[in-house]
């Protein structure tokens, strides 16, 4: 097990700067998720940890030791690639055993560890098959067994669930989580699926274009996103972002006005989660243009002078028909305020929305 530290890590491919400078600490035994849109540098960070890419600058520390130049094979890192990367010419048994061949493990012990790893991920009865004779989920388990068999000090999972169907993804999610808890190995999960990140990880690292936007618990990211990007990236259905204006201690969002103290005048972006909005007699006038029953909730999309607004209502009864003219009210206490220029959220401690009166 290991404590991982990135100290101003930088990665360039020729002139392309992929990671301009990353600082990050991952504690021993922690399960963190690296979340971000495609191409933001998640895999690149992972490959630097595995020793596949050499950082262009900065220090990479494993338990306080600098490992920048340590070869991949000497790092004892287990990695599961997005494509699984099983060795197609070997049986499942040989695949799982492969990492032990370079460790001078006695034959009997190697056999035992292979069997244990296989049993751990429940592929023991597939030992003599080739990877091409396995389903996607089975291949994924074999890849996991191969990563675990060497007792890695760090487990890296690069979008391991993205090729699986929805049900299998759900089961594997719980299985991996349980396994990690049992083994206590420091684990980094790369994903661009926020649900995967929020359900599995202790902490989420949200990345954008090579930079860390926010690190925090799933709740932190959802309820207290530090930037407009995080607010927009986390949450499904996505947050509503409306444009507002503050002048003389009043926040105006279209026709709606709410008193606001502690903030200077200027344009602001207002983040409103769909579940924090409700239809009523007061608020922003809107017309329902789309309804999406989602099981226990119903998502309405309404057209308003402020743009499209998504409203989530619990219950399975469709209460508002398409075309209905109504109004949408929001609760100021659940309002997120972002500076338009920087995209940063204003800390709730610094401003005060009048929560007693509904914005009207």
């Amino acid at each position: 097990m290991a404590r991982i530290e990135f100290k101003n890590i930088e990665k360039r491919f020729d002139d392309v700067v992929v990671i301009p400078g990353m600082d990050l600490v991952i504690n021993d035994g922690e399960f963190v998720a690296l979340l971000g849109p495609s191409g933001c540098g998640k895999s690149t960070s992972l490959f630097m940890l595995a020793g596949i890419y050499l950082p262009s600058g900065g220090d990479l520390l494993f338990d306080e030791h600098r490992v920048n130049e340590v070869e991949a094979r000497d790092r004892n890192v287990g990695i599961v690639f997005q494509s699984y990367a099983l060795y197609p010419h070997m049986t499942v048994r040989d695949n799982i055993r492969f990492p032990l061949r370079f460790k001078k493990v006695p034959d009997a012990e190697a056999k035992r560890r292979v069997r244990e790893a296989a049993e751990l991920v429940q592929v023991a009865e597939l030992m003599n098959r080739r990877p091409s004779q396995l389903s996607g989920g089975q291949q994924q388990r074999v890849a996991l067994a191969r990563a675990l068999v060497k007792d890695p000090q760090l487990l890296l999972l690069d979008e391991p669930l993205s090729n699986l169907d929805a049900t299998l993804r759900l089961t594997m999610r719980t299985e991996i989580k349980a396994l990690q808890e049992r083994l206590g190995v420091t684990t980094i999960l790369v994903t661009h699926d926020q649900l995967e990140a929020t359900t599995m990880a202790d902490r989420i690292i949200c990345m954008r274009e090579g930079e860390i936007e926010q690190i925090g618990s799933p709740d932190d990211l959802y309820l207290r996103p530090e930037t407009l990007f995080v607010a927009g990236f986390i949450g499904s259905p996505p947050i509503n972002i409306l444009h507002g204006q503050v002048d003389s201690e009043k926040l105006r969002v279209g026709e709606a006005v709410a008193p606001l103290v502690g903030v200077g005048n200027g344009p602001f972006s207002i983040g409103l989660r769909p579940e924090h909005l409700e239809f009523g007699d007061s608020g922003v006038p809107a017309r329902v243009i789309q309804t999406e029953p989602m099981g226990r909730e119903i998502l309405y999309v309404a057209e308003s002078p402020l743009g499209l607004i998504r409203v989530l209502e619990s219950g399975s009864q469709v209460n508002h028909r398409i075309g209905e003219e109504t109004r949408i009210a929001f609760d100021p206490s659940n309002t997120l305020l972002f500076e338009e220029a920087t995209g940063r959220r204003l800390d709730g401690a610094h401003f005060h929305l009048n929560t007693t009166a509904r914005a009207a």
Partner: protein
Amino acid sequence: MAATTMNSMPSTGQSHWDRLAARARMQRRFSDVALYAFLIVVSLPIIVTYFWLLTLSFSAGRGEINTDVLWPSLFILTPALVALWIWGAVAKDRRQAFIGWGLILAGTIILYFSLLGDQLHLEGYRFLVDPDFNRLNESVVAGDKLSYSATAFPSVWVAFRNSLFVAGAQTVIVCTVASLAGYYISRFQFPLRNSMLRAMLVLHAFPTYTLVVPLFIILWYVGLLDSLVGVMLVLVGIELPFAVFIMKGFYDAVPWEVEMSALADGATRMQTYVRVVLPQVTNGLIAVTVFSFIRGWEEYIFMVTFLIKNTNWTMSLYMFFVTEENSLGIDFALVSAVAVFYVIPSLIMYTVAQKYLMQMSVSGVKG
């Protein structure tokens, strides 16, 4: 309105679908027949020709050539082949199949020898044991051919060994270099990589025999004229670019994650290459092996230009001079027998590697 169209669909609609299905069936059947007819028409002349060569080598006399044995043989062997094939499909288990095949084979052999036995002889194959095989033909050999007169024939085994050396050594070098170079080109970026790839393809497009004169001069300068090593190196140079190209295609199909995974699993670069990458390109390696071996085995122009001493003869030269020497009163059995002997190694190579060569055409060679 929607309801009426819905109701009227099944009656007219169903027969419509049936008609379409029937047409598709007809087309499929027709194209199957056409395909087999085409394959038979295309391959029959080659098969019959080779079969004729074989029968000639066991039956022909001197100075005359005929199809006396060919047609009766075909009449006996074709039904036998069909019978073997049908029995293979009909037999219930392996045991039954083998017994049936044995009976059919035994019957065919007995029939064949009782009908044609007296016309068969092994005289054509005397060259295998007797280097001086031409003694029999001496009466018709003109004495003015200096270096390759009848007595100047080396033992066929010398030619065989020379050919084996040229083709084998060439293959080993081509495979080694192509598998390493192909790997490098597939995995690493370097200046002029693409121009180099393009140049390798273009090089392959040139008729290589245009190089005979310059190569002759070069070999003479470096003292490798009339040496097997010299010819072998020439063949290596000519075969290599395309072999590298083919190997690169196979390496391209190996995902780099698999390699990275091996590195992370504790293998060194070399171990990764040998244990993980190479096993995934064996088909390519086999294809390159077969093609370069056969190229070396069949090469004639470079051999005849660069090799002079008769102890340096390769099988292609041997074949040629046997045909030449017998030009006045051709010993057809001998010529055919040498040809059969010459063809056998290529045949073995193809048969053994056939499975892998087929895979190559299926999995494709990517640029």
